[in-house]
Protein backbone atom coordinates (compact mmCIF):
# COMPACT_ATOMS: atom_id res chain seq x y z
CA UNK A 1 0.00 0.00 0.00
CA UNK A 2 1.36 3.40 -0.88
CA UNK A 3 0.36 4.88 2.46
CA UNK A 4 2.41 2.48 4.54
CA UNK A 5 5.31 2.95 2.25
CA UNK A 6 5.21 6.66 2.86
CA UNK A 7 4.99 6.38 6.59
CA UNK A 8 7.99 4.05 6.56
CA UNK A 9 9.87 6.62 4.57
CA UNK A 10 8.98 9.44 6.92
CA UNK A 11 9.81 7.52 10.05
CA UNK A 12 13.22 6.90 8.57
CA UNK A 13 13.57 10.66 8.38
CA UNK A 14 13.70 10.64 4.59
CA UNK A 15 11.34 12.09 2.02
CA UNK A 16 7.63 12.49 2.67
CA UNK A 17 6.86 11.71 -0.94
CA UNK A 18 8.63 8.50 -1.87
CA UNK A 19 11.28 9.43 -4.39
CA UNK A 20 14.36 7.78 -5.66
CA UNK A 21 17.15 9.68 -4.00
CA UNK A 22 20.01 10.56 -6.32
CA UNK A 23 22.58 7.82 -6.41
CA UNK A 24 25.75 9.30 -5.00
CA UNK A 25 29.20 7.82 -5.05
CA UNK A 26 29.94 6.94 -1.45
CA UNK A 27 33.62 7.77 -1.82
CA UNK A 28 35.08 10.27 -4.25
CA UNK A 29 37.14 8.58 -6.96
CA UNK A 30 40.90 8.78 -6.71
CA UNK A 31 42.41 11.84 -8.35
CA UNK A 32 44.32 9.80 -10.87
CA UNK A 33 45.87 12.18 -13.36
CA UNK A 34 46.70 11.74 -17.01
CA UNK A 35 49.54 14.25 -17.06
CA UNK A 36 52.12 15.50 -14.59
CA UNK A 37 51.34 19.19 -15.10
CA UNK A 38 51.34 20.86 -11.70
CA UNK A 39 49.22 23.79 -10.58
CA UNK A 40 51.77 26.19 -12.00
CA UNK A 41 51.63 24.60 -15.43
CA UNK A 42 55.04 22.98 -15.08
CA UNK A 43 55.52 19.43 -16.28
CA UNK A 44 58.55 17.41 -15.17
CA UNK A 45 58.13 15.35 -18.31
CA UNK A 46 58.38 18.40 -20.59
CA UNK A 47 61.20 19.71 -18.40
CA UNK A 48 63.11 16.43 -18.88
CA UNK A 49 62.71 16.64 -22.65
CA UNK A 50 63.79 20.28 -22.59
CA UNK A 51 66.83 19.33 -20.53
CA UNK A 52 67.79 16.59 -22.95
CA UNK A 53 67.45 18.93 -25.94
CA UNK A 54 69.16 21.82 -24.24
CA UNK A 55 72.07 19.89 -22.75
CA UNK A 56 74.23 19.99 -25.94
CA UNK A 57 73.61 23.73 -26.23
CA UNK A 58 74.53 24.19 -22.58
CA UNK A 59 77.69 22.05 -22.76
CA UNK A 60 79.02 22.52 -26.27
CA UNK A 61 77.61 25.78 -27.58
CA UNK A 62 77.83 28.01 -24.52
CA UNK A 63 80.33 25.79 -22.61
CA UNK A 64 78.77 27.04 -19.39
CA UNK A 65 80.96 27.33 -16.33
CA UNK A 66 79.69 28.01 -12.83
CA UNK A 67 81.48 29.43 -9.84
CA UNK A 68 80.09 29.03 -6.35
CA UNK A 69 77.19 26.74 -7.20
CA UNK A 70 77.40 25.45 -3.63
CA UNK A 71 76.06 28.81 -2.40
CA UNK A 72 72.61 27.94 -3.76
CA UNK A 73 70.62 26.36 -0.94
CA UNK A 74 69.85 22.68 -1.48
CA UNK A 75 66.59 22.98 0.43
CA UNK A 76 64.08 25.64 1.37
CA UNK A 77 62.96 28.60 -0.67
CA UNK A 78 65.41 31.06 -2.19
CA UNK A 79 65.04 33.85 -4.68
CA UNK A 80 67.69 33.76 -7.41
CA UNK A 81 68.40 37.15 -8.91
CA UNK A 82 70.50 37.67 -12.03
CA UNK A 83 71.40 40.25 -14.64
CA UNK A 84 69.45 39.94 -17.86
CA UNK A 85 70.94 40.37 -21.32
CA UNK A 86 70.70 39.57 -25.00
CA UNK A 87 67.78 40.52 -27.21
CA UNK A 88 66.27 37.09 -26.68
CA UNK A 89 68.08 36.17 -23.50
CA UNK A 90 69.97 32.92 -23.04
CA UNK A 91 70.63 33.50 -19.36
CA UNK A 92 67.26 32.21 -18.12
CA UNK A 93 67.41 28.73 -19.70
CA UNK A 94 71.08 28.39 -18.81
CA UNK A 95 70.52 29.15 -15.12
CA UNK A 96 67.48 26.88 -14.92
CA UNK A 97 69.22 24.07 -16.77
CA UNK A 98 72.43 24.41 -14.77
CA UNK A 99 70.79 24.32 -11.35
CA UNK A 100 68.43 21.51 -12.27
CA UNK A 101 71.16 19.27 -13.67
CA UNK A 102 73.78 20.07 -11.04
CA UNK A 103 71.66 20.42 -7.90
CA UNK A 104 68.62 18.38 -8.97
CA UNK A 105 66.23 21.06 -7.73
CA UNK A 106 63.46 22.49 -9.88
CA UNK A 107 63.70 26.19 -10.68
CA UNK A 108 60.63 28.25 -11.50
CA UNK A 109 61.44 31.14 -13.80
CA UNK A 110 59.43 34.28 -13.10
CA UNK A 111 59.05 36.21 -16.30
CA UNK A 112 57.04 38.83 -18.05
CA UNK A 113 53.51 37.77 -18.97
CA UNK A 114 54.36 38.61 -22.59
CA UNK A 115 55.00 34.95 -23.40
CA UNK A 116 51.67 33.74 -22.16
CA UNK A 117 49.76 35.57 -24.85
CA UNK A 118 51.72 33.89 -27.67
CA UNK A 119 50.18 30.63 -28.91
CA UNK A 120 52.34 27.48 -28.50
CA UNK A 121 55.24 29.50 -27.04
CA UNK A 122 53.20 30.46 -24.00
CA UNK A 123 52.13 26.90 -23.33
CA UNK A 124 55.64 25.47 -23.79
CA UNK A 125 57.08 28.24 -21.65
CA UNK A 126 54.64 27.41 -18.88
CA UNK A 127 55.26 23.63 -19.13
CA UNK A 128 58.99 24.27 -18.96
CA UNK A 129 58.67 26.04 -15.64
CA UNK A 130 57.84 29.62 -16.56
CA UNK A 131 55.56 31.49 -14.16
CA UNK A 132 54.09 34.97 -14.55
CA UNK A 133 56.14 37.42 -12.48
CA UNK A 134 53.34 38.41 -10.12
CA UNK A 135 54.36 39.14 -6.51
CA UNK A 136 51.79 36.66 -5.22
CA UNK A 137 53.20 33.91 -7.42
CA UNK A 138 56.71 34.56 -6.11
CA UNK A 139 55.50 34.62 -2.52
CA UNK A 140 53.61 31.36 -2.89
CA UNK A 141 56.49 29.58 -4.58
CA UNK A 142 59.01 30.74 -2.01
CA UNK A 143 57.03 30.70 1.23
CA UNK A 144 54.38 28.01 0.83
CA UNK A 145 56.16 25.64 -1.53
CA UNK A 146 59.78 26.39 -0.51
CA UNK A 147 60.98 26.33 -4.10
CA UNK A 148 63.73 28.09 -5.99
CA UNK A 149 62.45 30.99 -8.06
CA UNK A 150 64.50 32.91 -10.59
CA UNK A 151 63.84 36.55 -11.31
CA UNK A 152 65.49 39.22 -13.42
CA UNK A 153 64.78 42.53 -11.69
CA UNK A 154 65.84 44.52 -14.75
CA UNK A 155 63.08 42.89 -16.77
CA UNK A 156 62.87 43.90 -20.39
CA UNK A 157 64.91 47.02 -19.62
CA UNK A 158 67.90 44.68 -19.36
CA UNK A 159 67.30 42.69 -22.50
CA UNK A 160 66.24 45.77 -24.44
CA UNK A 161 69.69 47.39 -24.16
CA UNK A 162 71.70 48.09 -27.26
CA UNK A 163 75.04 46.32 -27.64
CA UNK A 164 76.90 49.52 -26.78
CA UNK A 165 75.33 49.50 -23.31
CA UNK A 166 76.31 45.92 -22.47
CA UNK A 167 76.95 44.99 -18.84
CA UNK A 168 75.51 48.27 -17.61
CA UNK A 169 72.83 47.15 -15.17
CA UNK A 170 69.51 48.93 -15.48
CA UNK A 171 67.29 49.99 -12.60
CA UNK A 172 66.15 47.03 -10.47
CA UNK A 173 62.47 47.79 -10.83
CA UNK A 174 61.11 49.27 -7.62
CA UNK A 175 62.80 46.74 -5.40
CA UNK A 176 59.75 44.49 -5.40
CA UNK A 177 61.93 41.38 -5.45
CA UNK A 178 63.50 42.36 -2.14
CA UNK A 179 60.13 42.94 -0.55
CA UNK A 180 58.90 39.54 -1.70
CA UNK A 181 61.98 37.81 -0.31
CA UNK A 182 61.45 39.64 2.99
CA UNK A 183 57.78 38.69 3.15
CA UNK A 184 58.55 35.10 2.25
CA UNK A 185 61.45 35.00 4.72
CA UNK A 186 63.90 33.58 2.19
CA UNK A 187 67.42 34.67 1.18
CA UNK A 188 68.26 36.29 -2.13
CA UNK A 189 71.04 34.61 -4.09
CA UNK A 190 72.52 36.96 -6.71
CA UNK A 191 74.02 35.40 -9.84
CA UNK A 192 76.27 37.35 -12.22
CA UNK A 193 76.24 36.16 -15.84
CA UNK A 194 78.73 37.08 -18.56
CA UNK A 195 78.46 36.08 -22.20
CA UNK A 196 74.70 36.42 -22.63
CA UNK A 197 75.17 39.98 -23.94
CA UNK A 198 77.40 38.75 -26.74
CA UNK A 199 75.24 35.71 -27.51
CA UNK A 200 72.64 37.96 -29.08
CA UNK A 201 73.84 41.54 -29.42
CA UNK A 202 71.15 44.03 -30.25
CA UNK A 203 72.13 46.48 -32.97
CA UNK A 204 68.92 48.40 -33.24
CA UNK A 205 65.19 48.34 -32.57
CA UNK A 206 62.09 48.75 -34.69
CA UNK A 207 59.68 50.75 -32.54
CA UNK A 208 56.89 50.66 -35.15
CA UNK A 209 56.93 46.88 -35.38
CA UNK A 210 57.08 46.59 -31.60
CA UNK A 211 53.96 48.72 -31.26
CA UNK A 212 52.22 46.68 -33.91
CA UNK A 213 53.00 43.37 -32.20
CA UNK A 214 52.49 44.75 -28.65
CA UNK A 215 56.07 43.85 -27.75
CA UNK A 216 58.32 45.86 -25.43
CA UNK A 217 60.85 46.05 -28.27
CA UNK A 218 61.42 44.51 -31.71
CA UNK A 219 65.13 43.74 -31.94
CA UNK A 220 67.50 43.82 -34.89
CA UNK A 221 70.32 41.57 -33.74
CA UNK A 222 73.74 40.75 -35.10
CA UNK A 223 72.51 37.14 -35.30
CA UNK A 224 69.87 38.19 -37.80
CA UNK A 225 72.54 39.84 -39.92
CA UNK A 226 74.54 36.60 -39.91
CA UNK A 227 71.83 33.91 -39.91
CA UNK A 228 68.86 35.76 -41.36
CA UNK A 229 65.50 35.14 -39.71
CA UNK A 230 67.00 32.10 -37.97
CA UNK A 231 69.01 34.60 -35.96
CA UNK A 232 65.96 34.99 -33.77
CA UNK A 233 66.55 31.52 -32.39
CA UNK A 234 70.30 30.95 -32.89
CA UNK A 235 72.55 32.75 -30.44
CA UNK A 236 76.29 33.20 -31.03
CA UNK A 237 78.49 30.66 -29.21
CA UNK A 238 79.75 33.07 -26.59
CA UNK A 239 81.31 31.53 -23.50
CA UNK A 240 78.85 31.80 -20.62
CA UNK A 241 80.26 32.18 -17.14
CA UNK A 242 78.12 32.39 -14.04
CA UNK A 243 79.23 33.40 -10.58
CA UNK A 244 76.98 32.85 -7.59
CA UNK A 245 77.43 35.52 -4.92
CA UNK A 246 76.95 35.08 -1.19
CA UNK A 247 73.25 34.82 -0.30
CA UNK A 248 71.68 37.92 1.24
CA UNK A 249 69.67 37.25 4.40
CA UNK A 250 67.37 39.92 5.75
CA UNK A 251 67.07 40.72 9.42
CA UNK A 252 63.31 41.32 9.26
CA UNK A 253 60.53 38.91 10.08
CA UNK A 254 58.39 37.40 7.31
CA UNK A 255 54.72 38.15 6.61
CA UNK A 256 54.72 41.73 7.85
CA UNK A 257 52.02 44.08 6.72
CA UNK A 258 54.57 46.30 5.02
CA UNK A 259 58.28 46.83 4.93
CA UNK A 260 60.15 50.11 5.11
CA UNK A 261 60.39 51.42 1.58
CA UNK A 262 63.80 52.91 2.18
CA UNK A 263 65.14 49.63 3.55
CA UNK A 264 63.76 47.75 0.56
CA UNK A 265 65.29 50.23 -1.86
CA UNK A 266 68.63 50.20 -0.01
CA UNK A 267 68.82 46.41 -0.09
CA UNK A 268 67.87 46.31 -3.76
CA UNK A 269 70.48 48.89 -4.61
CA UNK A 270 73.12 47.05 -2.55
CA UNK A 271 72.43 43.86 -4.52
CA UNK A 272 72.55 45.77 -7.79
CA UNK A 273 75.90 47.33 -6.90
CA UNK A 274 77.37 43.97 -5.88
CA UNK A 275 76.20 42.38 -9.11
CA UNK A 276 77.59 45.27 -11.16
CA UNK A 277 80.97 45.09 -9.44
CA UNK A 278 81.11 41.33 -9.85
CA UNK A 279 80.35 41.72 -13.55
CA UNK A 280 83.20 44.21 -13.97
CA UNK A 281 85.45 41.86 -12.05
CA UNK A 282 84.53 38.92 -14.29
CA UNK A 283 85.05 41.03 -17.40
CA UNK A 284 88.51 42.03 -16.16
CA UNK A 285 89.42 38.33 -16.09
CA UNK A 286 87.81 37.52 -19.42
CA UNK A 287 90.38 37.17 -22.20
CA UNK A 288 87.99 36.25 -25.02
CA UNK A 289 84.29 36.58 -25.60
CA UNK A 290 84.25 33.14 -27.24
CA UNK A 291 86.68 31.21 -25.07
CA UNK A 292 86.28 33.00 -21.74
Amino acid at each position, binding site marked *: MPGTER*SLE*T*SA*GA*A*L*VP*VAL*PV*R*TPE*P*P*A*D*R*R*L*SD*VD*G*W*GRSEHVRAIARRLYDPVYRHWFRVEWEGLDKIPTEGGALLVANHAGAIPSDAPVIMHGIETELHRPVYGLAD*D*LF*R*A*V*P*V*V*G*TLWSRAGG*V*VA*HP*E*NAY*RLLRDERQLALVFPEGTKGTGKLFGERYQLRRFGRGGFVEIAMRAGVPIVPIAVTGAEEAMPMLGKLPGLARLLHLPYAPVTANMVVFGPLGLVIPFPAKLRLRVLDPVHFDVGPDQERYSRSKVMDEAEAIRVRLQETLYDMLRDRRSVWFG
Partner: protein
Amino acid sequence: MGRRVLITGLASFWGGRVAQALEADPAVDVIVGLDTTEPTVPLDRTEFVRADQSYSILNRIVTATKVDTILHTFLVVDSTRVSGRAMHEQNVIGTMNLLAAAGSHGSSVRHVVVKSSTLVYGSSSQDPTWYREDMPRVAAAHSRVERSLAEVESYLRDFADDNPHVVVTLMRFANVVGTDIVTPITRALQLPLVPSIFGFDPLLQFVEEDDVVRSIEFVTRQRVPGVFNVAGDGRLPWSEVAAMCGKRLAPMPPFATEWAAAPLSAIGIAIPPELLELLRYGRGVDNSRLKAAGFEYRYTSAGAVRNFVRAVRLQRTVGARSAYRYEQDVEQFFRHSPAVVHEPEENMT
Protein backbone atom coordinates in the same frame (compact mmCIF):
# COMPACT_ATOMS: atom_id res chain seq x y z
CA MET B 1 13.58 28.80 17.71
CA GLY B 2 15.01 27.22 14.65
CA ARG B 3 16.17 29.05 11.59
CA ARG B 4 13.95 30.45 8.93
CA VAL B 5 15.58 30.40 5.54
CA LEU B 6 14.70 32.01 2.24
CA ILE B 7 16.31 30.53 -0.86
CA THR B 8 16.27 32.40 -4.13
CA GLY B 9 16.68 30.47 -7.34
CA LEU B 10 14.91 27.37 -6.01
CA ALA B 11 14.47 25.98 -9.51
CA SER B 12 18.17 26.13 -10.25
CA PHE B 13 20.46 23.24 -9.46
CA TRP B 14 22.00 25.30 -6.69
CA GLY B 15 18.85 26.39 -4.91
CA GLY B 16 17.09 23.06 -5.23
CA ARG B 17 19.94 20.98 -3.92
CA VAL B 18 20.63 23.35 -1.04
CA ALA B 19 16.94 23.28 -0.08
CA GLN B 20 17.04 19.48 -0.07
CA ALA B 21 20.07 19.55 2.19
CA LEU B 22 18.50 22.04 4.60
CA GLU B 23 15.27 20.04 4.81
CA ALA B 24 17.23 17.28 6.50
CA ASP B 25 18.42 19.70 9.16
CA PRO B 26 16.06 19.77 12.18
CA ALA B 27 17.54 23.12 13.24
CA VAL B 28 15.91 24.72 10.21
CA ASP B 29 12.25 25.45 10.90
CA VAL B 30 11.08 27.06 7.71
CA ILE B 31 12.39 27.04 4.16
CA VAL B 32 10.84 29.34 1.61
CA GLY B 33 11.99 29.05 -1.96
CA LEU B 34 11.62 31.64 -4.68
CA ASP B 35 12.00 31.34 -8.39
CA THR B 36 10.46 32.28 -11.69
CA THR B 37 9.92 28.65 -12.62
CA GLU B 38 8.90 25.53 -10.75
CA PRO B 39 11.38 23.54 -8.67
CA THR B 40 13.20 20.81 -10.55
CA VAL B 41 13.94 18.59 -7.59
CA PRO B 42 11.50 16.94 -5.20
CA LEU B 43 11.15 18.91 -2.00
CA ASP B 44 9.57 17.90 1.25
CA ARG B 45 8.70 20.92 3.27
CA THR B 46 10.08 23.82 1.28
CA GLU B 47 7.39 26.34 0.40
CA PHE B 48 7.68 27.44 -3.20
CA VAL B 49 6.71 30.96 -4.22
CA ARG B 50 6.75 32.06 -7.80
CA ALA B 51 8.33 35.48 -8.32
CA ASP B 52 9.18 37.66 -11.27
CA GLN B 53 12.84 37.70 -12.20
CA SER B 54 13.68 41.00 -10.53
CA TYR B 55 12.09 39.93 -7.26
CA SER B 56 9.88 42.95 -6.71
CA ILE B 57 7.73 41.04 -4.19
CA LEU B 58 10.70 40.16 -2.06
CA ASN B 59 10.14 42.83 0.53
CA ARG B 60 6.66 41.50 1.27
CA ILE B 61 7.89 37.93 1.54
CA VAL B 62 10.69 38.83 3.92
CA THR B 63 8.33 40.84 6.12
CA ALA B 64 5.64 38.17 6.08
CA THR B 65 7.84 35.13 6.72
CA LYS B 66 10.30 36.78 9.13
CA VAL B 67 13.18 34.83 7.64
CA ASP B 68 16.53 35.25 9.35
CA THR B 69 18.69 33.86 6.57
CA ILE B 70 18.68 34.52 2.84
CA LEU B 71 20.55 32.21 0.47
CA HIS B 72 20.86 34.07 -2.79
CA THR B 73 21.64 31.40 -5.38
CA PHE B 74 19.67 33.02 -8.15
CA LEU B 75 22.57 34.73 -9.93
CA VAL B 76 23.07 33.70 -13.54
CA VAL B 77 26.64 32.86 -14.43
CA ASP B 78 25.92 31.04 -17.69
CA SER B 79 25.52 33.82 -20.19
CA THR B 80 24.34 31.46 -22.94
CA ARG B 81 21.13 30.79 -21.05
CA VAL B 82 19.63 34.26 -20.95
CA SER B 83 19.90 37.48 -22.89
CA GLY B 84 22.09 40.27 -21.63
CA ARG B 85 19.13 42.32 -20.53
CA ALA B 86 17.52 39.45 -18.64
CA MET B 87 20.80 38.72 -16.95
CA HIS B 88 21.13 42.32 -15.82
CA GLU B 89 17.55 42.23 -14.56
CA GLN B 90 18.07 39.00 -12.68
CA ASN B 91 21.57 39.56 -11.30
CA VAL B 92 21.80 43.26 -10.64
CA ILE B 93 18.20 44.39 -10.11
CA GLY B 94 17.27 41.13 -8.39
CA THR B 95 20.13 41.47 -5.92
CA MET B 96 19.33 45.13 -5.38
CA ASN B 97 15.75 44.26 -4.44
CA LEU B 98 16.91 41.41 -2.28
CA LEU B 99 19.37 43.53 -0.35
CA ALA B 100 16.85 46.34 -0.04
CA ALA B 101 14.40 43.88 1.52
CA ALA B 102 17.06 42.39 3.78
CA GLY B 103 18.22 45.79 4.96
CA SER B 104 14.85 47.45 5.35
CA HIS B 105 13.81 48.87 8.72
CA GLY B 106 12.84 46.18 11.18
CA SER B 107 14.04 43.40 8.93
CA SER B 108 14.55 40.05 10.64
CA VAL B 109 17.39 39.05 8.31
CA ARG B 110 20.68 38.35 10.12
CA HIS B 111 22.59 36.32 7.54
CA VAL B 112 22.90 36.76 3.78
CA VAL B 113 24.75 34.24 1.62
CA VAL B 114 25.38 35.18 -2.00
CA LYS B 115 26.56 32.75 -4.64
CA SER B 116 28.95 34.45 -7.02
CA SER B 117 31.54 33.02 -9.34
CA THR B 118 35.29 33.10 -9.83
CA LEU B 119 34.38 34.76 -13.12
CA VAL B 120 34.79 37.99 -11.15
CA TYR B 121 38.57 37.49 -11.34
CA GLY B 122 38.44 37.30 -15.12
CA SER B 123 41.09 35.49 -17.08
CA SER B 124 44.07 37.22 -18.62
CA SER B 125 47.71 36.65 -19.43
CA GLN B 126 48.84 38.84 -16.55
CA ASP B 127 46.88 36.97 -13.91
CA PRO B 128 48.57 35.50 -10.87
CA THR B 129 48.46 31.72 -10.86
CA TRP B 130 46.22 31.67 -7.78
CA TYR B 131 43.80 34.44 -6.91
CA ARG B 132 43.14 35.06 -3.24
CA GLU B 133 39.84 36.54 -2.15
CA ASP B 134 41.30 39.97 -1.45
CA MET B 135 43.15 40.34 -4.76
CA PRO B 136 41.62 42.61 -7.39
CA ARG B 137 41.33 41.26 -10.91
CA VAL B 138 44.14 42.26 -13.26
CA ALA B 139 42.35 42.87 -16.55
CA ALA B 140 39.18 44.92 -16.76
CA ALA B 141 35.89 43.03 -17.08
CA HIS B 142 34.58 42.90 -20.66
CA SER B 143 31.86 40.30 -20.72
CA ARG B 144 28.35 41.07 -19.55
CA VAL B 145 28.24 38.34 -16.95
CA GLU B 146 31.49 39.47 -15.38
CA ARG B 147 30.36 43.06 -15.25
CA SER B 148 27.01 42.15 -13.72
CA LEU B 149 28.65 39.96 -11.08
CA ALA B 150 31.07 42.76 -10.24
CA GLU B 151 28.10 45.06 -9.75
CA VAL B 152 26.35 42.52 -7.55
CA GLU B 153 29.45 42.18 -5.40
CA SER B 154 29.79 45.91 -4.99
CA TYR B 155 26.14 46.15 -3.87
CA LEU B 156 26.83 43.42 -1.39
CA ARG B 157 29.89 45.22 -0.02
CA ASP B 158 27.81 48.36 0.49
CA PHE B 159 25.13 46.29 2.16
CA ALA B 160 27.68 44.72 4.50
CA ASP B 161 29.03 48.16 5.41
CA ASP B 162 25.56 49.56 6.09
CA ASN B 163 24.34 46.55 8.06
CA PRO B 164 27.05 45.49 10.48
CA HIS B 165 24.53 43.38 12.40
CA VAL B 166 24.03 41.11 9.38
CA VAL B 167 26.50 38.31 8.68
CA VAL B 168 27.34 38.54 4.98
CA THR B 169 28.93 35.61 3.15
CA LEU B 170 30.04 35.91 -0.44
CA MET B 171 31.02 32.68 -2.15
CA ARG B 172 32.86 32.56 -5.45
CA PHE B 173 32.56 29.20 -7.10
CA ALA B 174 35.02 27.84 -9.62
CA ASN B 175 33.73 25.88 -12.63
CA VAL B 176 31.19 23.44 -11.27
CA VAL B 177 31.00 19.91 -12.64
CA GLY B 178 28.93 17.02 -11.45
CA THR B 179 26.05 14.69 -12.09
CA ASP B 180 23.31 17.23 -12.62
CA ILE B 181 24.61 20.66 -13.43
CA VAL B 182 24.79 21.86 -17.03
CA THR B 183 27.21 24.68 -17.81
CA PRO B 184 28.92 25.81 -21.02
CA ILE B 185 31.92 23.74 -19.91
CA THR B 186 30.01 20.52 -19.25
CA ARG B 187 28.27 20.98 -22.59
CA ALA B 188 31.59 21.51 -24.34
CA LEU B 189 32.97 18.36 -22.75
CA GLN B 190 30.10 16.29 -24.10
CA LEU B 191 30.55 17.35 -27.71
CA PRO B 192 32.13 14.82 -30.07
CA LEU B 193 35.11 17.15 -30.32
CA VAL B 194 35.95 19.47 -27.45
CA PRO B 195 36.64 23.07 -28.52
CA SER B 196 40.01 24.51 -27.61
CA ILE B 197 42.22 27.32 -28.86
CA PHE B 198 45.23 26.35 -30.89
CA GLY B 199 48.50 26.83 -29.04
CA PHE B 200 46.87 27.29 -25.65
CA ASP B 201 46.40 24.68 -22.97
CA PRO B 202 45.03 26.62 -20.00
CA LEU B 203 44.88 25.34 -16.45
CA LEU B 204 41.35 25.11 -15.08
CA GLN B 205 40.06 24.53 -11.62
CA PHE B 206 36.87 22.67 -10.79
CA VAL B 207 34.54 22.14 -7.91
CA GLU B 208 32.18 19.21 -7.55
CA GLU B 209 28.42 19.71 -7.16
CA ASP B 210 28.38 18.00 -3.79
CA ASP B 211 31.09 20.28 -2.47
CA VAL B 212 29.10 23.24 -3.75
CA VAL B 213 26.00 22.22 -1.83
CA ARG B 214 28.00 21.22 1.23
CA SER B 215 29.88 24.52 1.27
CA ILE B 216 26.67 26.56 1.11
CA GLU B 217 25.24 24.41 3.87
CA PHE B 218 28.44 24.83 5.86
CA VAL B 219 28.53 28.63 5.77
CA THR B 220 24.80 28.78 6.48
CA ARG B 221 25.05 26.54 9.51
CA GLN B 222 28.24 28.09 10.89
CA ARG B 223 27.27 31.66 9.94
CA VAL B 224 30.76 32.37 8.61
CA PRO B 225 31.15 35.94 7.42
CA GLY B 226 33.45 36.96 4.58
CA VAL B 227 34.40 36.28 1.00
CA PHE B 228 35.36 32.73 0.03
CA ASN B 229 36.68 31.05 -3.06
CA VAL B 230 35.18 27.60 -3.45
CA ALA B 231 37.29 25.37 -5.68
CA GLY B 232 38.88 21.96 -5.51
CA ASP B 233 42.61 21.59 -4.95
CA GLY B 234 44.86 21.73 -7.99
CA ARG B 235 44.39 22.76 -11.58
CA LEU B 236 44.19 20.68 -14.74
CA PRO B 237 45.23 21.49 -18.29
CA TRP B 238 42.24 21.64 -20.62
CA SER B 239 43.82 18.94 -22.81
CA GLU B 240 43.92 16.63 -19.82
CA VAL B 241 40.30 17.37 -18.91
CA ALA B 242 39.28 16.45 -22.46
CA ALA B 243 41.42 13.32 -22.30
CA MET B 244 39.80 12.30 -19.02
CA CYS B 245 36.47 12.60 -20.80
CA GLY B 246 37.86 10.46 -23.60
CA LYS B 247 37.56 13.28 -26.11
CA ARG B 248 39.79 14.84 -28.70
CA LEU B 249 40.32 18.57 -28.99
CA ALA B 250 39.11 20.63 -31.94
CA PRO B 251 41.42 23.65 -31.94
CA MET B 252 40.04 27.01 -33.03
CA PRO B 253 42.43 29.58 -34.50
CA PRO B 254 44.24 31.64 -31.85
CA PHE B 255 43.52 34.87 -33.68
CA ALA B 256 40.03 36.23 -34.32
CA THR B 257 38.73 33.38 -32.18
CA GLU B 258 35.41 35.14 -31.57
CA TRP B 259 34.73 35.11 -35.28
CA ALA B 260 35.66 31.46 -35.53
CA ALA B 261 33.37 30.63 -32.64
CA ALA B 262 30.45 32.67 -33.95
CA PRO B 263 29.22 30.14 -36.56
CA LEU B 264 29.34 27.43 -33.89
CA SER B 265 26.57 29.13 -31.97
CA ALA B 266 24.38 28.85 -35.05
CA ILE B 267 24.59 25.06 -34.82
CA GLY B 268 23.84 25.11 -31.13
CA ILE B 269 27.32 25.20 -29.66
CA ALA B 270 27.40 28.50 -27.87
CA ILE B 271 30.79 29.44 -26.47
CA PRO B 272 30.40 32.64 -24.47
CA PRO B 273 33.25 35.20 -24.58
CA GLU B 274 34.21 34.54 -20.97
CA LEU B 275 34.71 30.86 -21.80
CA LEU B 276 36.88 31.75 -24.77
CA GLU B 277 39.08 33.77 -22.42
CA LEU B 278 39.17 30.87 -20.01
CA LEU B 279 40.19 28.48 -22.79
CA ARG B 280 43.10 30.82 -23.50
CA TYR B 281 44.48 31.70 -20.09
CA GLY B 282 42.66 29.57 -17.53
CA ARG B 283 42.20 30.61 -13.94
CA GLY B 284 43.28 29.53 -10.50
CA VAL B 285 41.96 30.51 -7.12
CA ASP B 286 43.29 29.92 -3.64
CA ASN B 287 40.84 27.83 -1.62
CA SER B 288 42.68 27.95 1.69
CA ARG B 289 40.44 30.53 3.36
CA LEU B 290 37.37 28.31 3.33
CA LYS B 291 39.49 25.39 4.50
CA ALA B 292 40.80 27.52 7.36
CA ALA B 293 37.18 28.27 8.29
CA GLY B 294 36.74 24.52 8.81
CA PHE B 295 35.29 23.28 5.53
CA GLU B 296 36.61 20.02 4.13
CA TYR B 297 36.44 19.40 0.43
CA ARG B 298 35.57 15.90 -0.68
CA TYR B 299 36.86 16.39 -4.21
CA THR B 300 39.97 17.85 -5.77
CA SER B 301 39.75 19.38 -9.23
CA ALA B 302 40.85 16.09 -10.75
CA GLY B 303 38.43 14.12 -8.56
CA ALA B 304 35.57 16.39 -9.60
CA VAL B 305 36.29 15.82 -13.28
CA ARG B 306 36.62 12.05 -12.71
CA ASN B 307 33.25 12.03 -11.02
CA PHE B 308 31.73 14.02 -13.86
CA VAL B 309 33.11 11.52 -16.38
CA ARG B 310 31.58 8.64 -14.43
CA ALA B 311 28.20 10.39 -14.35
CA VAL B 312 28.33 11.04 -18.08
CA ARG B 313 29.18 7.39 -18.79
CA LEU B 314 26.26 6.21 -16.69
CA GLN B 315 23.96 8.66 -18.39
CA ARG B 316 25.10 7.49 -21.78
CA THR B 317 24.06 3.97 -20.90
CA VAL B 318 20.87 4.38 -18.93
CA GLY B 319 19.74 7.77 -20.22
CA ALA B 320 19.07 10.92 -18.27
CA ARG B 321 17.31 10.52 -14.96
CA SER B 322 13.63 11.18 -15.48
CA ALA B 323 12.96 14.80 -14.73
CA TYR B 324 10.98 15.66 -11.65
CA ARG B 325 7.74 17.48 -12.32
CA TYR B 326 6.37 19.88 -9.80
CA GLU B 327 2.61 19.44 -9.27
CA GLN B 328 1.19 22.41 -7.48
CA ASP B 329 -1.87 20.62 -6.09
CA VAL B 330 -0.01 17.57 -4.92
CA GLU B 331 2.62 19.66 -3.19
CA GLN B 332 -0.01 21.81 -1.50
CA PHE B 333 -1.80 18.67 -0.35
CA PHE B 334 1.26 17.16 1.26
CA ARG B 335 2.23 20.37 2.97
CA HIS B 336 -1.07 21.76 4.14
CA SER B 337 -3.81 19.14 4.10
CA PRO B 338 -4.94 18.10 7.58
CA ALA B 339 -5.18 14.57 6.20
CA VAL B 340 -1.41 14.25 6.02
CA VAL B 341 0.14 12.97 9.22
CA HIS B 342 3.49 14.62 9.98
CA GLU B 343 4.84 11.91 12.22
CA PRO B 344 8.52 12.76 12.64
CA GLU B 345 7.73 16.22 13.88
CA GLU B 346 5.45 14.88 16.57
CA ASN B 347 8.15 12.46 17.66
CA MET B 348 10.61 15.25 18.06
CA THR B 349 8.46 17.53 20.19
